[in-house]
């Protein structure tokens, strides 16, 4: 097996000799590496996913939302994983899951649109960059690997750019139906006619979590589909899956629990579908920003700042949580309300994909997140 550092060295020399090569071919040998980005749209609550149960302020700030973790086994002295993430927990135990906490993109406001734009474009602020970091990743990969697919009807921003990307969506993709239905209720709140009609319509419909509305079957189907799309030799090497329903302003405990169950099923189906290729696979799970530390008046949380991200897969040097934990005490919070970011999501992603594809980390970081400046990149995320 070739050592990653050999690749990097060779690659850097080749790049120098080529001058301003538009496409940096650092790794010329064919690779079997696969990379999947599962985006959690709606600001997934990192504190409800990977709970800092060892933080003395946790139970008090989280109230009802802390109950899910009452009996949850701890990953280490500080963190416990949501019990609905059974598959992910198994991966962690097997050394194939790594979590990063108190992580955030450069975005510091609280609009989903703008936050997702930053997360997907890889810019320092919304709308500064027109294409997406995953598309630019294709640009730094060898040509024979630069094939990507969106497991969606349309190509999300992260995959948009100068390199053509496929998209595929079956009719049974999990959608945010239930979340949308709940929002429609709010949309009609002030409209007498529509409010009455809508109340009747929803009276008989139980509003449950999205991905687990069918006990996670839809989410699992999407995971299995993604595996089918990236498993073949001539298939895509990079894929992106969009998930919605993470904006838990009310009744978070049930909703988030259901969402996580769906995510867990999706990851499980992906692993199963990839079979031996799982060993060559890295799955990134990330969201645009986190949620408030305190529970709000409707048993939910509002838009916050730092959250948690995951790296899953046989290629990941897992079994650990990376966190420079800022603490949940009042004084430690960002603007007095949110988990303070201590780790850049950009640096985390750049480090992870560079190591995974064995490409030059400095150049990768500047290609994917050109506005990040000189940020200490995260190293050692991948088994060598």
């Amino acid at each position, binding site marked *: 097996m070739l050592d990653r550092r050999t690749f990097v060295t060779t690659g850097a020399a080749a790049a120098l000799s080529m001058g301003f090569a538009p496409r940096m071919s650092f790794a010329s040998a064919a690779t079997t590496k696969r990379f999947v980005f599962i985006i959690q*749209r*709606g600001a997934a609550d990192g504190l409800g996913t990977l709970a800092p149960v060892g933080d003395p302020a946790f139970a008090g700030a989280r109230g009802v939302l802390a109950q899910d973790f009452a009996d949850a086994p701890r990953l280490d002295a500080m963190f416990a994983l949501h019990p609905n993430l059974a598959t992910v927990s198994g991966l962690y135990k097997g050394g194939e899951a790594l979590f990063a906490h108190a992580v955030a993109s450069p975005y510091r406001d609280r609009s989903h649109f703008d936050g997702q734009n930053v997360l997907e474009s890889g810019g320092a602020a919304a709308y500064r960059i027109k294409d997406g970091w995953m598309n630019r990743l294709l640009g730094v990969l060898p040509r024979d690997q630069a094939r990507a697919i969106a497991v969606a009807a349309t*190509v999300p921003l992260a995959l948009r750019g100068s390199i053509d990307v496929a998209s595929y969506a079956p009719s049974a993709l999990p959608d*945010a139906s239930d979340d*949308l239905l709940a*929002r429609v209720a709010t949309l*009609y709140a*002030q409209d007498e006619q529509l409010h009455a009609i*809508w109340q009747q319509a929803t009276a008989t419909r139980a509003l449950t979590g999205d991905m687990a509305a069918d006990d996670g079957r839809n989410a699992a189907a999407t995971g299995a589909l993604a595996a089918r799309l990236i498993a073949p030799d001539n298939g895509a090497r990079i894929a992106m899956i969009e998930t919605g329903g993470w904006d838990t302003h009310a009744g978070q405990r049930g909703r988030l629990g259901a969402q996580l169950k769906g995510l867990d099923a999706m990851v499980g189906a992906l692993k199963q579908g990839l079979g031996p290729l799982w060993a060559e696979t890295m799955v990134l799970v990330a969201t645009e920003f986190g949620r408030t530390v305190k529970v709000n008046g409707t048993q939910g949380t509002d838009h916050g700042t730092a959250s948690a991200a995951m790296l899953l897969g046989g290629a990941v040097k897992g079994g650990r949580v990376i966190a420079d934990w800022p603490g949940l005490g009042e004084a430690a919070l960002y603007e007095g309300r949110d988990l303070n970011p201590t780790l850049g999501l950009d640096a985390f992603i750049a480090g992870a994909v560079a190591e995974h594809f064995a490409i030059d980390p400095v150049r990768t970081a500047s290609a994917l997140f050109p506005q990040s400046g000189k940020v200490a990149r995260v190293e050692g995320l991948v088994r060598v």
Partner: protein
Amino acid sequence: MTPTVIAWNRFGLGARPGAVAPADAKRWLIDQFDRYEARPPVIAAQATTAQAGAAFAEYRAERRAARRMATDAGPLDRSARMAMRVDGRDRYRDAIGARANAAIVSDTPFAERLVHFWANHFAVSAEKLAVVGLAGAFEFDAIRPHVLGSFGAMLGAVERHPAMLLYLDQAQSVGPGSRVGQRVAAGGKRKRGINENLAREILELHTLGVGSGYDQSDVTEFARALTGWTVAGIGGRANGDPGGFAFAPAMHEPGARTILGARYAQDGEAQADAVLAALAVHPATARHVATKLARHFVADTPPPALVTRIEQAFLESNGDLPTIYRALIDAPEAWAPMPAKFKTPWEWSISAMRGLGLREIAAQQFAGLQQQLGQPVWRPGAPAGYDDIAGRWAAPDALVRRVEAAERLVSRAPSTIDARERSQALFADSLSAATQQQLARAESAQQALALMLVSPEFLRR
């Protein structure tokens, strides 16, 4: 709503992105009369009445032949029927696609709306096998060319169209005193005689309106006058291109007719024409059409003053349609700022696609969507057409279906659309603060777009 937003939505089919607010909203509507295309390419590519009619006539001929030849005609008959179903269904689906695609890119959306209005006023329903393959051709050939002409000309074209003659059973109506009628009576064979269906619906639905003073003898007399109006190759002994309109003198009931107190002594085909010409300019017709137009464009319960204005324009112009439309446009009641109409499934779907900036939609997909939303195209199930009042579709289940449909439509739209900007472009100052807030709070760009499509502003016009 501003005058521009009213023009775009109440009169039109919703704005497309990049639409420039007209300096004069009324002018923008009237100018469409000069730019309207009766046969845009997508519609010109569809089967004509002659083609669709010929296919149906051929099917009927095959069926007759099969029955004559075989003692057990069952299987042959069934296979011909199956082939006709498939053939007709393809034509029906393609025509729905053409209608939708013409509407989503049209820059004369008011004129397109008028086409849809008249096609529903003169409804044929594809639930009948004879109509399936002809429904599109009916609208394209009998409605579209006349939408800016006179009501009388449209009426004449509509009642002569094979889809209407077959749908309302006119094609086989035989006068008992006609040559065919006499022969049938003498032969003692299966009974054939007058069918009143078309005559009744013309009076009740197409012209005077129900309860406007005609009686059963008027219906019967009119049905006698209409005998002989048939479809070549289908209704019996008529010369002409198979599947097209034909007058069969041998089926026509001889003699003068008296309808609504007027005597019609004309011979043959001209007799029913004269009746139609009188009905087309009758005061009750003016009232009926004015009420329906006002209800369609302005309010489920239309303001009486508005109906009167349109009615006057109808009477003074002898049913000149552009004059009638101008009266509607000029009426202050039509520009009331509060939206008063809940969009029909068709209007909502088309405006959603226009709003998303789509340029093309697959026929099958669009036909399925209309079915799901409760108003399959050209299939109202009754000659009265679809009701034009919100109560029929602003119902709980229908609304949930729109939300689901919005979600699916959005998943096929470019993911680059920012609903916050798009809604401003489509509704300008007419968007409520509550809606703006919900769009801004949506979890994702796609969800915001779906919310925009089902917002109170988008559901109404």
